[in-house]
């Protein structure tokens, strides 16, 4: 779960990390008020849960309160399109208005989990302000990586190393306090990422976290009630939220073939096999281990809400979930949800025969496929414009040869 910058800064501030003075604005007039309070210039930063907002025009500086109000007016309701958001972009609903800090130097600091070694790792660099991927490509020698043994924590010698490598001898006390408190915050709140980019040295030689990013481990939200409350529901796709509450794992994509699959890996592979057959998946949907009539009905409902969807591919490999149960779920669900597009079903694994039999005897028009590649072929035959049909057959033949 991603936190907004202002939420991340609030948390950091609770851990005595210096942040710029500022407040959140929900209306243009708020921005005017905050600007008056803080003095000028101020920076207005769109609070959206995506990276690259600066490049997309989501960060602006105002020299007067009126200018702050006008900029806020323009930003509110604006849709920011970044590499991560996709073409539909995200709406700006909140702005963080902050006093502009005087910057002498920009540094980078983050804590994350290194999957390979299975430990938290501190990453820091003298080159802040640009993306860390860019730094690691252009100046790999300027990246400091310190793995932390969770049994002993962030050790004084490791902090000393940061102090020297980042040229922060003058700010020794500050940097020690900031990084050890951030490590504490990381562990206390089950973070999966905590980043300051940049952490700046001001004209008066103090350290300030100019930008802050925190992501919380979704698996740990159950024991971080205070964090769960911070979730900003307006930032999520409503279909994805609805699916989540129903126990489904749904991600919207832009194709025309709806997918309903059990298991995350198979769901991904199903999308892949559709692509290889020349089709385009409309979504990722993992119905998980409990394919009840209710969850399947919810799945149909969400998939068919997208007017682009021309067909639905149900791909179930019965392991935990048995095929007859899934078949029953599909039939029950179709009583409550009207599905007007063709459905291709591939059921295999535990109790496959019973499941297939139930679908065949239902009198409903399913296309039943024996395996994943046949299913992909069948479904792309439905969704492809008729003219291309010959070509498709040729391509498939080629592959089969």
């Amino acid at each position, binding site marked *: 779960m991603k936190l907004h910058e202002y939420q991340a800064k609030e948390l950091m501030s609770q851990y005595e990390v210096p942040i710029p003075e500022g407040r959140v604005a929900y209306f243009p007039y708020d921005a005017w008020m905050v600007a008056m309070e803080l003095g000028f210039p101020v920076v207005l930063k769109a609070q959206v849960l995506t990276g690259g907002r600066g490049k997309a025009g989501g960060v602006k500086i105002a020299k007067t309160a009126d200018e702050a109000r006008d900029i806020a007016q323009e930003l509110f309701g604006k849709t920011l399109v970044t*590499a991560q958001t996709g073409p539909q972009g995200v709406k700006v609903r909140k702005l963080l208005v902050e006093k502009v800090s005087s910057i002498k130097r920009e540094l980078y600091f983050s804590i994350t*989990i290194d999957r390979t070694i299975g430990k938290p790792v501190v990453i820091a660099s003298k080159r802040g302000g640009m993306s860390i991927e860019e730094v690691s490509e252009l100046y790999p020698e300027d990246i400091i990586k310190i793995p932390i043994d*969770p049994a002993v924590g962030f050790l004084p010698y490791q902090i000393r190393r940061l102090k020297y490598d980042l040229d922060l001898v003058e700010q020794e006390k500050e940097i020690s306090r900031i990084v050890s408190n951030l490590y504490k915050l990381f562990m206390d709140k089950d973070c999966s990422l905590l980043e300051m980019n940049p952490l700046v040295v001001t004209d008066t030689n103090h350290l300030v976290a100019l930008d802050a990013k925190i992501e919380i481990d979704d698996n740990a939200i159950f024991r971080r009630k205070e964090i769960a409350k911070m979730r900003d529901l307006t930032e999520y796709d409503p279909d994805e939220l609805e699916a989540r509450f129903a126990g489904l794992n749904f991600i919207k994509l832009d194709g025309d073939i709806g997918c309903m699959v059990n298991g995350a890996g198979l769901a*991904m592979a199903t999308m892949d096999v559709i692509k290889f057959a020349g089709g385009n998946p409309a979504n990722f949907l993992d119905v998980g281990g409990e394919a009840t009539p209710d969850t399947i009905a919810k799945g149909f409902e969400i998939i068919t809400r997208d007017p682009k969807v021309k067909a639905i591919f149900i791909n179930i490999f019965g*392991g935990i979930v048995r095929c007859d149960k899934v078949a029953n779920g599909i039939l029950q669900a179709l009583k409550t949800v009207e599905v007007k597009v063709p459905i291709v079903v591939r059921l295999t694994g535990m109790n496959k025969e019973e499941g297939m039999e139930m679908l065949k005897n239902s009198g409903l028009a399913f296309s039943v496929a024996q*395996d994943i590649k046949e299913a992909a072929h069948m479904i792309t035959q439905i969704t492809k414009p008729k003219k291309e049909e010959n070509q498709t057959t040729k391509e498939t033949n080629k592959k089969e040869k």
Partner: protein
Amino acid sequence: MAIAVYKTSRVIVQGITGKEGRYHALACRDYGTKVVGGVTPGKGGSDVDGIPVFNTVEEAVQKTNPNVSLIFVPPPFAADAILEAVGSGIKIIVCITEGIPVLDMVKVKRVIEKEGIILIGPNCPGIITPDASKIGIMPGHIFKRGSIGIISRSGTLLYETADQISKVGLGQSTCLGIGGDPIVGTDYIFWLERFEQDPETEAIMIVGEIGGDAEEKAAEYIKAHVTKPVFAFVAGASAPKGRRMGHAGAIIMGKKGTVESKYNALKEAGVHIIENPGYIGETIYKTLKEKYHFSI
């Protein structure tokens, strides 16, 4: 021979009185696995269809002498359950539980590395040596004893792969899912090493997915140490960047974790890439027959 689990493996099930634990403990026993006991705190002294239940792993170990533990404990308590098994001297632990907090796994990882424990999972389907022992939640009947070893990150994709391999007339030596979480007990390399040494395994199939760099690391290892034919499919070629695809670990960050990066590394190591998951069985069959002259 197969690897890690055999007909002789003695298994206890932690969380055996829960819905899933019970169902799968019995399904494993039906398959032929020696399920010798179960553990649920507070339910000691009872039994699950004749399988004795104990309050602690320690007691289960003393009374039933197991060498594998299969864990179905809910996420908030699963890390503790793994460490309890370690503390009681069990050396092979299979954790099915999905949704364990990453920082819990950081602690677990440190302990299992120090103690030399084989932890399969978490968030995995388990491990199976066909016709000998099934320790996990996979549908047993799709597997067939044979010569292909399979290492997968995902559960259902392990089934899909094994099913395709069985259907072309080949079979499997041992198959396992290493788990879909960011931190798991064992990586591909650990299993590649064992499959390479196992006389029954003649070829190895890797089923990867986007995210992390485990496949790239595996490629380095294969290049230097593996002489048997290796095949690989990596799921997620069509996945959008920056989105977590169901599994906590399946996410592309920046340029890292993409299918291309993984395929490039694997190709470089001489691995046979199967890009289209509809053709896994066929490709393995044809390649082994034509290129390696297997008599199939």
